[in-house]
């Protein structure tokens, strides 16, 4: 009787020690689900989901506070991916969310720009170069097309230019042909 108790207690202590050690050693920082969701989001940081960036939106989804259909730049495919990963049903865009738009980049009309730096402060990815009273310009390769710089501009010199298809970015289309059965 006593030996059985001792054996059980010893096992409990050993296993407890192992678990305790593992809890410290293999501790995960942050919520891994948030990172997984964040990896699916397009990182435009545009705030159209009503959260101040992709990471906060991912956090809200992970906490169950936000719907998965609030990210227009991600498109329907983004919603599908989120639905797949979270094991929930696909939800179409709707309600107060904007419809997806073609991908575009901001363009500054340099002759109108007064160099106020307001757009530079608004840009979430630091893709605008310039300084006070100096002309500003968009670093097009880094621009995510979030449109956050458009509203602050006091002289309305920023416009969004849709990215046109070029030979280097062209993609083969999904084959479309008639699939008919002979009569």
């Amino acid at each position, binding site marked *: 009787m006593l030996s059985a108790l001792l054996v059980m207690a010893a096992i409990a202590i050993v296993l407890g020690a192992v678990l305790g050690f593992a809890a410290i050693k293999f501790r995960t920082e942050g919520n891994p689900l948030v990172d997984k969701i*964040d990896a699916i989001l397009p990182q435009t940081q545009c705030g159209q989901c009503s959260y101040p960036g*992709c990471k906060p939106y991912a956090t809200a989804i992970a906490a169950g506070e936000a719907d998965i259909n609030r990210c227009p730049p991600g498109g329907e495919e983004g919603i599908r991916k989120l639905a797949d990963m979270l094991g929930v049903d696909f939800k179409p865009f709707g309600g107060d969310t904007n419809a997806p738009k073609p991908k575009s980049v901001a363009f500054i009309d340099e002759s109108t720009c007064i160099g106020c730096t307001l757009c530079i402060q608004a840009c979430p*990815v*630091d*893709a605008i170069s310039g300084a006070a009273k100096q002309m500003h310009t968009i670093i097009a390769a*880094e621009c995510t097309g979030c449109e956050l710089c458009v509203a602050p501009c006091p002289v309305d010199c920023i416009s969004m230019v849709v990215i046109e298809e070029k030979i280097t970015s062209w*993609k*083969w289309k999904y084959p479309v042909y*008639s699939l008919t059965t002979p009569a």
Partner: protein
Amino acid sequence: MNALHHFHGGIHPPSHKAESTQMPIAHAPLPSRLVVPFHQHAGEAAKPVVQVGDHVLKGQLIGLPDGFISSAVHAPTSGTIAAIDMQPVAHPSGLPNLCATLTPDGRDEWVARKPVDDYRSHSPAELQQLLRMAGVVGLGGAAFPTDIKLLIGKKKIDTLILNAAECEPFITCDDMLMRERAAEIVKGAEILCFMVDAGEVLIGIEDNKPEAITAMQQAVSDSGMNFEVVTIPTIYPGGGAKQLIRVLTGLEVPSGKLPTDIGVQCFNVATTYSVYRALAHGEPLLSRIVTVTGNVRQARNYEALIGTPIDGLVALSEVLQDSNGYIMGGPMMGIPLPDVHVPVVKATNCVIAASDKLFPPPPPALPCIRCTRCVEVCPADLQPQDLYWYAKARDFGKAQAYSLFDCIECGACSYVCPSHIPLVQYYRFAKSEIHAREKEKQSADSARERHEFHLHRIEREKREKAEKLAAKEKAAQAAKSAVEHSDAGVTR
């Protein structure tokens, strides 16, 4: 030479090669306008280094290689640059690309050429740089810069293969080149052999080109080199690099690896010829042999300047009335030309005038019945019906797991498909979709990084401002108390 080996599958489409080998290579006349695209090769486009209105000489550099995988572009004749703008080019998208339009002055005046007298006195790296600046790219159709293929690092090349299989129907440009200029090809092979320090050189030619085989054998024995001309059976796609390597050496290039990883490198014969012209004569790649065939009165091979409009070129062979389009390349892997005014580029090995008689429109596609005939003919040992299934369902991860990227898009599967499914179109769609996603993922990752840094920077600025403010306040406080002290001193 050991016994020949086999690759899996393959097909025997009607070859249609006799039509265009009746007459020797003709020089296409100088057109009144040449349109030279800056992006004729795999990799990055060349950067224009001339301005509109400049007078250029034949062989003068007009586009500088821009990026690691890139190649130079030259003026094909002397004349004036009339425009540098977007022009229609031979691309399946039909989209325009940046081109220089050259109005020839008719004098065909060469820029100063710098031939390499003795290539053995140069290091392979120097020769590579010369080839890069001479704009030499693979002329088999893929237009991959030759200098990059010669960049083998520490790898040891046992076998250098000259690809003269020319397996695709209709195309005879390599055949005619070998018949007429075999000696120069062999000299090019000597240079390539020196550059990669190859143990042996094999020249693989399909057995439907007996004249070319004889000419090459003669040239090899005249040169006294220890090269071997190997006759291989005619089977499509026996001229695919991996397939030819398999046939000649029995080695299989592993998935995701390069031929150089197994000690083999492969060059097309026309490329080899251009290597010789570029080094021994200092002539950059300004022209190439183009087969004009199909629905024409007299199919023939022409040596055409890069930039020659294709409509002018096909007119030389008199296109028949019932033609309904043009294909650049062969009927299996070629692309339908969106516009016949596009220029000849370095990749233009063949132009076929198409007609309903020659290429009857395919009957409507039927559902896949999983007969696995495509599996039987696939030269890359893939499961085309599964790849089709996953590409159709846009399940790209699965398609990749089934080695989609080992598909060489030879079209053998579509050729035998009893349901007439355009299989290769699905594979191309899936491949470009996967590439686009990878690119998107990269830009999203970079945006995330930049955003995180942006937040970090704002946080830091706020903190620094607060610290500064605090320091200022403290200083003010100290100054104030000092003044109070001194005031107190004065009043006292």
